[in-house]
């Protein structure tokens, strides 16, 4: 490769990097910031509803009794098709039953203690997963953003031939854009394994709908469920005739005896109360990236086999590993803290990318104060809008309109900043962010 070609390649890669970055920057930044915050999804739920009963474990018979009590409250409503029991695990030591109609916490005796109120955590997760866009469109857009991070990583490495050589050079106090560029390049190169892991797993999750439709259309006569059945296991044959509730207690006892080394985290009842019902237990395995193994049982609590996520085909194990690898819940609090720091680094990389581009233009004499101020408003306004939703949750309650608050506030901040570009606007948002976070902390403590 000659030097001239190399230079040309580097220049093209820089153009590609800038083009992709500018097109996706704002949405990507929202996904990065929310992804960083949602690492503590389980902990946020505990902050949202601190009074919910907590327990280290729950007896199988108590779970059985709790399920019966919850379903007894749904008489006269359409029969629930799936019932989920979240079992106490170290990060979220609560027992919660979710049906098609409600979600409630159980106490240690299996009695219904309270409705689940985790509206903010769910809003946060949905914002990260779908940017609040319902249906498959939102999640596909977020998947596409993951793809663009892959393209940005490739173009970024090629656009900066000295990126590895300079990997420890951080001229943080150098003004004129050097410090900003160094932060951008150093953080991105050292978090590259994390960035690629997050981007690819996020893209696989986000584009599963598109890929699933493609596979279904070509190989499964349009049946999406059949596409995923070889990986995660299939649904049973429905039979709507009434039947007694399944013996969940026997299922959990069987799990404890046969698989003592695993930690059941969910019991899922498929079509409960019908002749076609069956029970699935998801159990976590220590020191594995998989979210768990799916154990199948019939209504009498007889074991029918495991899906193979823990020890089956490579494709099964890899597919079951993408969620924990993406969300950082595979190593307790230390890994979660590491993920938050890495997520912050990725957010900084995203934010500084546009700032570097704007800075270069300004040094060439192309000043765009409204654009600069608008980007500052994205950088500080998005976390501020998010902090305002948290404050609303703690002050107004579970029914606060989080989606409206977030998007209206974000749009308003950008509009105001572009209308009145000034350093004070940026300072105002920074102080407001600090005040909102302190206010949230105070509200959570009180």
């Amino acid at each position: 490769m000659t030097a001239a070609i190399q230079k040309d390649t580097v220049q093209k890669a820089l153009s590609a990097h800038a083009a992709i970055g500018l097109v996706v920057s704002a949405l990507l930044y929202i996904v990065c910031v929310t992804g960083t915050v949602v690492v503590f999804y389980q902990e946020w739920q505990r902050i949202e509803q601190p009074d919910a009963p907590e327990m280290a474990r729950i007896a199988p018979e108590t779970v059985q009794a709790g399920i019966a009590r919850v379903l007894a409250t749904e008489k006269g409503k359409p029969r629930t098709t799936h019932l989920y029991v979240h079992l106490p695990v170290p990060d979220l030591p609560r027992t919660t039953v979710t049906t098609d109609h409600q979600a409630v916490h159980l106490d240690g005796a299996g009695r219904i203690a309270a409705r689940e109120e985790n509206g903010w955590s769910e809003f946060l997760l949905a914002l990260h997963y779908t940017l609040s866009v319902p249906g498959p469109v939102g999640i596909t857009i977020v998947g596409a953003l993951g793809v663009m991070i892959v393209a940005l990583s490739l173009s970024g490495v090629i656009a900066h031939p000295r990126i590895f050589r300079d990997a420890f050079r951080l001229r943080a106090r150098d003004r004129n854009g050097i410090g900003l560029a160094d932060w951008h390049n150093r953080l991105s190169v050292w978090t590259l394994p994390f960035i690629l892991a997050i981007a690819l797993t996020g893209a696989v999750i986000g584009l599963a709908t598109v890929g699933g439709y493609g596979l279904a259309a070509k190989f499964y006569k349009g049946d999406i469920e059949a596409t995923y059945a070889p990986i995660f296991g299939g649904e049973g044959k429905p039979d709507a005739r009434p039947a007694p509730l399944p013996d969940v207690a026997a299922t959990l006892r069987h799990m404890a005896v046969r698989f003592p080394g695993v930690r059941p985290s969910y019991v899922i009842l498929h079509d409960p109360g019908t002749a076609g019902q069956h029970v699935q237990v998801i159990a976590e395995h220590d020191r594995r990236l998989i979210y768990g193994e799916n154990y199948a049982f019939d209504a009498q609590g007889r074991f029918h086999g495991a899906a193979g996520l823990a020890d089956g085909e490579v494709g099964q194990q890899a597919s079951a590993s993408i969620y924990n690898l993406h969300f950082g819940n595979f190593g307790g609090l230390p890994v979660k803290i590491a993920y938050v720091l890495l997520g912050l680094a990725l957010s900084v990389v995203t934010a500084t990318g546009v700032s570097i581009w704007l800075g270069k233009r300004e040094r060439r004499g192309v000043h765009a104060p409204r654009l600069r101020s608008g980007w500052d408003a994205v950088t500080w306004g998005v976390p501020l809008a998010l902090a305002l939703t948290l404050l609303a949750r703690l002050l107004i309650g579970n029914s606060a309109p989080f989606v409206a608050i977030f998007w209206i506030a974000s749009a308003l901040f950008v509009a105001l900043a572009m209308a009145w570009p000034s350093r004070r606007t940026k300072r105002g948002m920074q102080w407001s962010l600090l005040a909102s976070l302190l206010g949230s902390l105070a509200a959570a403590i009180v």
Partner: protein
Amino acid sequence: MAAFDVMMGTGAAAAAAGVLVLRLSWARARRSAGLNAVGWLLILAGISAGMVAAGAWGVAVVAIIAMGTAAVLLGHAALTSPPGRSRPSERRAHMLPGKGEPLHLGQRVLTFLLAVPGAMLSALLVALAARAGAGAADWHEANGNALALFLLPTLWGVFAFLLLMLRRRGQLLLLALPAAASAAILWLGPQA
């Protein structure tokens, strides 16, 4: 101490040491291929130890430790860097036209359409063709389907990047050739 702890501890230490060696190597005035190799080999050994100890989980944990070590070194560099007045890079990204140059909006929209829906469609066709190939090769269905689901975003990312490096003719060929070959495989190949 259990074998697991020894192996994970060794892996973590090797990866952290590898980062430190690279720090030393890259700080030298002249490039040292030997020191670079030692650094990368230590990181590789650390990751391998993580893999032996606990598979993908071990690799992920060792990688986090390596990145954490680098973060500490970067933090030190940030804290100890003197105030400077170096000239910043003036490399232009050539993202937007210069003063008086036409915007070429149609060309830009076409590039976007090629890099986003076009590259996705092409990647999807290749992923489905790979699934068909996996089926023909008697792979387990789970492996074939997972392969397609992982290939779709990976290829799309690579295509999107390569597209922006090429001129229009190259872009069209980059998308059309794999898409056409994949479509042929899907048309003629196994249907399940």
